[in-house]
């Protein structure tokens, strides 16, 4: 195995210098997600204004992959409409579940394409998706009105 194929420079950069980290107010909904096999966890908040993702803030503990992918997530969704964000999410999920067979589209996924190598390691796919699951869940909670702060 070529370690570099999983740990691309971009991933290590995001891991060491995460974007948007920390929990911020105000927010509309929060989601707590955990990976039961390794104990990684993330708490993620979203603020949605007029159908746009105004802010994503988060904290958590986890491996480089889960931390970096959440950092990349904030870059990809903040400032975009929820619809756009979900399209991006779908592309990212598809990439991760593609067993390394899918060619990522840099126009859509930007730094997210660095995770193409992770898709070859099934045990790490969940790590890469942890923040995204929290994002999806948090957004669902805002529109369901389950939680509004």
């Amino acid at each position, binding site marked *: *195995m070529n370690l570099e194929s999983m740990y691309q420079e971009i991933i290590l950069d995001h891991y060491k210098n995460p974007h948007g980290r920390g929990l911020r107010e105000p927010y509309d909904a929060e989601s707590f997600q*955990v990976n*039961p*096999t*390794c104990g990684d966890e993330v708490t993620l908040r979203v603020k949605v204004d007029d159908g746009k993702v105004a802010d994503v803030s988060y904290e958590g503990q986890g491996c480089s992959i889960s931390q970096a992918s959440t950092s990349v997530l904030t870059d990809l969704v903040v400032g975009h409409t929820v619809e756009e964000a979900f399209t991006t999410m779908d592309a990212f999920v598809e990439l991760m579940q593609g067993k390394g067979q899918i060619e990522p589209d840099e126009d859509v996924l930007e730094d997210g394409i660095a995770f193409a190598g992770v898709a070859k*390691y*099934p*045990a*790490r796919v969940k790590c890469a998706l942890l923040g995204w699951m929290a994002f999806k869940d948090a957004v669902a909670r805002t529109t369901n009105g389950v939680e509004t702060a």
Partner: protein
Amino acid sequence: MTTTTANSVPLDVAAIRADFPILTRTVRDGKPLVYLDSGATSQKPAQVLEAERRFLETSNAAVHRGAHQLAEEATDAYESARVRIAEFVGASPHELVFTKNATEGINLVAYAMSNAATAGPEAERFKLGPGDEIVITEMEHHANLVPWQQLCQRTGATLKWFSVTADGRLDLSNVDELITERTKVLAFTHQSNVLGTINPVEFLVKKARKVGALVVLDACQSVPHFPVDLHALDVDFAAFAGHKMVGPYGIGVLYGRRELLEAMPPFLTGGSMIELVRMEQTTFAAPPQRFEAGTPMTSQAVGLGAAADYLSAIGMDRVAAHEHLLTEAALAGLGEIPGVRIIGPTDMADRGGLVSFVIDGVHPHDSGQVLDSLGVAVRVGHHCAWPLHRACSVPATVRASFYVYNTLSEVDALVNGVREAQKFFGVA
């Protein structure tokens, strides 16, 4: 069901037999083995043994846990088996829970229902109490009878049951008295392991749906023997076992409709089925993991996947047609012998590949012994369906059950053996 499709090519039984190493052995001083006890457990082809061995020799590791290559390969092998088995029975992979045998599968449902009493509001629909009723049938295997008795004992619910007619069918004359608004569960066997009777699933599901009862199907004797499409049958739960379908011991399958498994409280608890564990409280994973506590029967799942592949390659239609042929021959052959009484339907309508019978004047145990002395392995006793035997007024029966590797000449050996038994005990 078991009707022969016009264009189905008969099985190449000789080729199939070559896959089963045990069939070449002899018993009792050199008699060729005539194995007519597949209803109890089937023999295993080299393909299944090989698949399991190959897994253990190359990819063995704990599944869903490690991050190393072996663990990835093992997880992949385990989950891909689930996908293939699901396909084999017309279900989705996440609707299949691996259990140790069919018995555990039925117990799982019964215990989840009593656990609902102290689980959250999500589990409300599974709660049972005094006034609620569980309906089963008199032809059930103990595995689909005792767990429901026990559930009634734990919850105060009441057990009711369909009787069996003289010709070995469910007596449906009082169906509307039995299945009522009080019925919470209707559990019955797809095919009786004693009578061979195939029960009218569609009719019973319709009755249960009308009153909102959950339908639990004991598919132990159907999934191995004819095509079963669980989604088409529209049952809520179904259980079957690997060892009866050319697969390994130590693995069974519980099917549950997705939305039910999602709402159902856990049964066995421990590792791999949790979401978050604190000393004070635990939350649980989504199904099927929620119902698979501890290290699973990993290599057995791989073996069962190979068994499903093996049967699929033959074609379940052809399996059923072959058993139909053998059963017809057995019914004809045994039917000709004075003093032999078939227990179960004597015609081939809605009937599967096994024949139970008694010989007047010879106890089944003694009949079995004579057959054994001739190399013919049958099962004698009540076959874990004691109430059914009582209903049929016989203490025990002799059962010959057929599978893909049996031949018409083995049916002849059975019929001749029965005549020998009569001779030996002086009743012919």
